[in-house]
């Protein structure tokens, strides 16, 4: 395993309000990390800091050599375009995902168009390319947003509550797609979700935040941790870890 990202003693603040402190962890290539925690625990703030949108009050965020901020793909929390009249085709939206890797004046070449087509095909939505984004279903829109995040072949994919607006069947399909991207294409994924059951089922590691780093490790470690039994109580702990009734714990 090689290191992709090292976070050391990170502290994040909004004005004077401290949202996260003393956070240190290492993300390895190929990790699939589910980030959970109560409302206001600093999950979204951590993502913003990793994306360079929120400067750390203290501590460091270091990407490995070749992975600058530019090789992070991002799927924001509020991705449903609220305006169905907004005139943008699927292809036009996915192409904006390529701008991060472009130098000024950030013009597109023909291989960029081919790259967008390839990503759409990879995510099974090639047929939507010329459609207006506002006319798509929620699940289709989410795949388009994932295609935009994946367009520049990022080493790390960051997703903020990607399934909160999807119905359960579409949600499972979306998780399976992410699972495939992680296993087959080797994409490192960090995903914030309230959907504790699903992240326990699909992700490989759990990061639990509550204004500090409560836990970070594999679900087996989480399941066996006495400290976590003390913290959560045994029922909640094993609800999270998704091992029971599935033969693992």
């Amino acid at each position: 395993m090689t290191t992709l990202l090292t976070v050391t003693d990170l502290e994040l603040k909004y004005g004077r309000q401290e949202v996260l402190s003393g956070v240190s962890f290492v993300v390895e290539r190929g990790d699939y990390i589910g980030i959970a925690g109560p409302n206001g625990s600093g999950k979204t703030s951590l993502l913003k800091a990793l994306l360079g949108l929120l400067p750390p009050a203290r501590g460091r965020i270091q990407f490995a050599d070749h992975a600058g901020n530019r090789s992070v793909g991002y799927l924001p929390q509020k991705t449903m375009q609220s305006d169905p009249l907004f005139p943008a085709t699927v292809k036009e939206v996915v192409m904006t995902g390529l701008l991060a890797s472009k130098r000024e004046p950030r013009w597109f070449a023909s291989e960029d168009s081919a790259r967008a087509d390839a990503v759409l095909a990879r995510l099974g939505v090639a047929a939507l390319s010329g459609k207006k984004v506002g006319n798509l279903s929620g699940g289709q829109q989410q795949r388009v947003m994932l295609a935009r995040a994946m367009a520049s072949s990022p080493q790390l994919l960051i997703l903020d509550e990607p399934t909160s607006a999807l119905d359960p069947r579409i949600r499972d399909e979306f998780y399976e797609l992410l699972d495939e991207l992680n296993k087959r294409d080797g994409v490192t994924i960090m995903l914030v979700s309230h959907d504790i059951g699903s992240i326990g089922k699909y992700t490989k590691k759990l990061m639990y935040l509550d204004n500090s780093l409560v836990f970070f490790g594999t679900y087996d470690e989480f399941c066996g941790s006495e400290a976590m039994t003390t913290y959560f109580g045994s029922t909640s702990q094993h609800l999270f870890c998704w091992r029971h009734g599935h033969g693992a714990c």
Partner: protein
Amino acid sequence: MALVDLIAEALTFTFIQRALVVGTLIALCCAFLGCFLVLRKLSMIGDGLAHVSFATVALALLLAASPLLVSIPLVTLASFAILSLSERTQMHGDAAIGLVSSFAIAVGVLIASLAQGFNVDLMSFLFGSILVISHADVLISLALAAVILGTVVLFYNQLFAVTYDEDFARVSGLNTRLITYLTAMLTAMTIALGIRVVGTMLISSLIVFPTVTALQVAKGFKSTIAVASVISVTCVVLGVFASYVYNLPTGATIVLLNAAMFLVLAGLRKLGAIGG
């Protein structure tokens, strides 16, 4: 005289030729910028800056200077003032526009009352007059339109990204603040360009109407700009001829044609005949 003869006759006049050239340039600039402004919910910035141009035109008349050359830098400054007011004081954008535009109108009225002598001239700038376009105006308009259209083409990808999803654009490393200021500056230039033909009171409708009409039919962003450009230029050209043939005020005729175009396409969309 038949309509065709009247139009042929109109084309022989220098002031009609100039109005068509300048009008087409304005129509294109408004359509190009309108798509970004309307979809970023910045339509009112156009309206506010048009009010500011009332004051700058009054100032130019007082100083006996070119209204276009006085307006461009001052309206641009006003656009920056609006953006920085809403950034620094966390004032809502529409409130900042309200402050700056009403302040400018007040200044304009004071200047006009101080000077007293140019009431008729000022009217022609309020509602546009194609009779007063000079040869120098045509040359300045050509240069201005080249800068505006060229900048939009050069920064198209970034302008689109910021318009569609500003947060995502920022994460992608785009300087979204610079793009916003650039948009405001281009808007200020477009408004200065438009005051001759349609006037300060009506110029913002040229920014909003063609885009909103194009939204009824277009699926993609580039096609919206293309459709808005066609609508905008058509309305300006028809408006200039109609105002000559029927002796109507040009600016108002152009705006009414735009409104008619919108009603027709919105109606067709409602009936399901068009639309993406």
